């Protein structure tokens, strides 16, 4: 599936796509969904909540385990993807598109600098584990 070139990536396998001024979408990567196996449950944040980078924004569950999804950077949740609650399998099928978890307002754009670009993330993956 590869790594969309215009996304930014975290060491915990989240991605953020900037899609407006100071606004982005957040999700988890193809590497992460493969490691998880079949996703059976998604726990989403409340709209309006703010997170520091690295705080638990959402949870993703496979049959066997619970995984935390961390906020890639400091943000405020503007919208959540409710469809993941009834169709968690989207996370496996389309992790970069239909399975966005939340739309967020980026509180400090400078924090984007410390995230990996696609090629850095691709290089990072093989040594990494969920």
């Amino acid at each position, binding site marked *: 599936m590869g790594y969309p070139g215009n996304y930014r990536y975290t060491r915990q396998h989240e991605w953020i796509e900037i899609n407006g001024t100071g606004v982005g979408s957040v999700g988890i990567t193809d590497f992460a969904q493969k490691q998880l*196996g079949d996703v*059976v449950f998604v726990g989403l944040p409340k709209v309006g909540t703010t997170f520091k980078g690295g705080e638990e924004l959402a949870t993703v569950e496979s049959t066997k385990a619970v995984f935390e999804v961390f906020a890639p950077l400091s943000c405020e949740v503007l919208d959540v993807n409710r469809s993941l609650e009834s169709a968690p399998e989207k996370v496996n099928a389309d992790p970069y598109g239909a399975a966005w978890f939340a739309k967020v307002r980026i509180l400090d754009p400078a924090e984007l600098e410390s995230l990996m670009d696609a090629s850095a993330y691709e290089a990072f993956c093989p040594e990494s584990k969920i």
Partner: protein
Amino acid sequence: MAESTAVNLRKTALNGVHRALGAKMVAFGGWEMPVEYPSSGGLVAEHKAVRTSVGVFDVSHMGDIRVYGKRASQAALAALEHLTMNQVSRLAVGQAQYSAMLYPAGTFVDDVIVHRLKDQDFLLVINAGTGEKDFHWARDNAQDFDCEVIDLSDTYTQLAIQGPRAIDVIAKLTDSPLSRLGSYWCTYATLAGLKDTLVARTGYTGEDGFEIYVPSDPETSEDVWEKVLSAGREFGMVPCGLGARNTLRLEARLPLYGHEISESINVWEAGLERFCRMEKGEFIGRDALRRAKESGLSRTLAGLEIVERGIARDGYRILDEAGNAIGAVSSGSPSPTLGKNIALAFVPPESAAIGSAVYVDVRGQKVKACVVPTPFYKRLRPRPTPADAHLGGRS
């Protein structure tokens, strides 16, 4: 889901095969085992394959203890009556039973399947994580009996072929009429070209199936594995890992050591009275069990269906309506067959009536659950009864 990096994990003879199949490996009971095979479609696909057709598991991590003695003394039988809670004398040659070894407190050393191979020759199949403890317990407590207790764990590769089509797969691997082998009976057959192979109609999935015991050298093990997979291909057989093994046994309400049974849980609390023959006479744990029955239970194992959004997992607290902790989940998971989230949990007897509402503390959220009958899943066709046949002798 991380790849296991711990050193000193034991490996079964088929470890290389699982890795070659791209299995996700995990540590379990001191062993490196496949938890699921992406090439099989993963846990849910493996689970469904077993329920609808057939799957094969490498369960060589299980332990094996042989207890045998001279026929005249009947000492092997006597030792096992002393060591286990079920009534061993009820077993005909070729018959097996689910049982347990108990501590004097009436709690579990381990659960076990006792196979009567000959009149005074028994095979106990025990859990992976407790193997060494079990062997020493059995040997030490059989000291006063004139019988031998030997550890055969390393001598067997054990495969479990499970599902409604298991019998069709087995039929391709042997000329013996194993379809007539009764449920919980065992025999020896030429299987996959190997003479005198022990085959038992047992399993841990709630489906019909067979467990086969072959020599544990890598060459034989891999050869049998390939033959089994090859025979199973036309039925959609897939290799299945410990992940599916757990969801299958949970749906069938089969206990897992350290969860539903343990050294701090007694037979009554675990709901396993059906396998405990108090009337047979003395056995380790009997006195404590009688006293425990007289004083009544403070907790009992109940089946839960999670009715609000959330997955109850092992160790999560059970709460009452007011939010007081009243118990804990012993095993919890999504149920692929039922399409619901289920759990087994220890709760006070007064909260265990079918239909009772309890709450699960899911990482800080109070999630409503309902007590339901168990097993959660029961296969539609009855397993063949022992009355149907058992095969005498070797072939």
